[in-house]
């Protein structure tokens, strides 16, 4: 664990702040750029399992702190004789597990990334966001019951993934800058010159 890993933690916290500035694109089925998951996904591909799990924990924790709706205390939940329906919801901390799963997915692509094919990682981070949002929605549907899969839902997930994916090059550029700053080696072997003077 070095300065680079610490900088990734700070990057996640910064992403949480920047997330507040991310607008909602109403014409695109309420899609938006998910900066925190993007920062995590891109960072996950540059580190080993241990630091990835730490980032998943911090990222998921911050994400849930903002998004999860915690049930109100009984005194503020209304008369149970009137409000008999107790709609369940996802528990605080579920995002940590989803982040870790996404992290493992991205780490499976590390060989490609190490070959310098970062653009494939960028595309697949869009796929990971799509899977993440789909899983999140399915979990909500499972907990609340009544799964409603509509066209607008699929388009919302699609546009959110696409918008987020478009910021991937910026995130990878930031990561390379951080790696350079803290002398961390991201195995970027695509442009490494071999003994014969040809790219590997």
């Amino acid at each position: 664990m070095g300065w680079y890993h610490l900088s990734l933690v700070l990057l996640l916290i910064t992403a949480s702040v920047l997330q507040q500035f991310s607008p909602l694109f109403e014409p695109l089925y309420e899609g938006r750029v998910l900066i925190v998951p993007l920062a995590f996904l891109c960072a996950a591909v540059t580190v080993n399992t241990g630091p990835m799990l730490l980032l998943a924990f911090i990222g998921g924790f911050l994400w849930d702190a903002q998004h999860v709706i915690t049930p109100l205390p009984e005194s503020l939940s209304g008369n149970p004789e009137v409000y008999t329906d107790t709609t369940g919801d996802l528990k605080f901390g579920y995002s940590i597990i989803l982040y870790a799963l996404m992290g493992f997915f991205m780490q499976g692509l590390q060989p490609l990334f190490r070959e310098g094919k970062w653009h494939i990682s960028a595309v697949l981070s869009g796929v990971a966001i799509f899977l993440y949002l789909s899983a999140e929605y399915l979990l909500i549907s499972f907990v609340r019951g009544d799964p409603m899969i509509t066209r607008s839902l699929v388009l919302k997930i699609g546009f959110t993934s696409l918008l987020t994916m478009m910021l991937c090059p910026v995130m990878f550029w930031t990561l390379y800058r951080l790696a350079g700053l803290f002398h961390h080696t991201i195995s970027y072997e695509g442009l490494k010159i071999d003994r014969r003077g040809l790219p590997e």
Partner: protein
Amino acid sequence: MKPINFIALVLFICGVVWVLTLSEGTVRNIQHAYYGTISPFVRGGSSLETTARDFLREIEHSEDLENQLRAIQGEYIKLRSIEGRLRELETENNELRRALNFQEKQRLNVVAARVIKRQPATWWETAIIDKGQDDSIGAGVPVIAPGGLAGKVDVASEDTCSMILLTDERCQVSVQVVGTPEVGILHGMRGRYGEEPRLILRHLSREAAILPGMKVITTGKGGLFPSNLLVGTVKEYTPGPVEGVALVKPSVNFDELGVVFVIAHKNGEEEG
């Protein structure tokens, strides 16, 4: 698996179990602290978003705005004349109320707040407003907007609040269909994005005499929301084998949610 990775995985699982078993009170405290920390950035993000949106709207709709201004000026003159007539009717109404010995309903003590962030979450229909505990606003209090009921406060920090909108499934309201004895529980509907929101009204009679266009208001039962707040109008009613279900169009325009009123204290709330 390398031993170091195995240890990391074990530590991670322990951490996840710890978080998942946190009590609701602790989670609310964490969220309270989070919102307290993040609120300056939410405000910053909001002002940036508002400026950008206003600028784009001004460019797109400057001609429309001019036409609207002309139309509004015409409407204004017409409304002034109607207002005169209404004043007469108000005086007459007050006299009749006194005559019938009507008990004047106590007014709600509301705090005006501005919506500074719409839908910060992907799936949860929430908004952040610029008033909080400093203005005597706490969790669970109702929020109204021009048009009717808008939702309720979820987490309150010192100077901001996160509110659950009426369009979220978690915001349940006891309501009545005006003109009928039908009462039920209304909540938001999942899966509608970029479309006009709809609410679901459940627990109605199997074959209730509910027609499209009927108004839906709060009953005040259950102690969460005051009575007689407009919630929406019925769009469609479906009788079922056990219970009837109605689709309701909310009376509040959630796309244009700018200013809301938080009911800070309820003075002598009336029960159903």
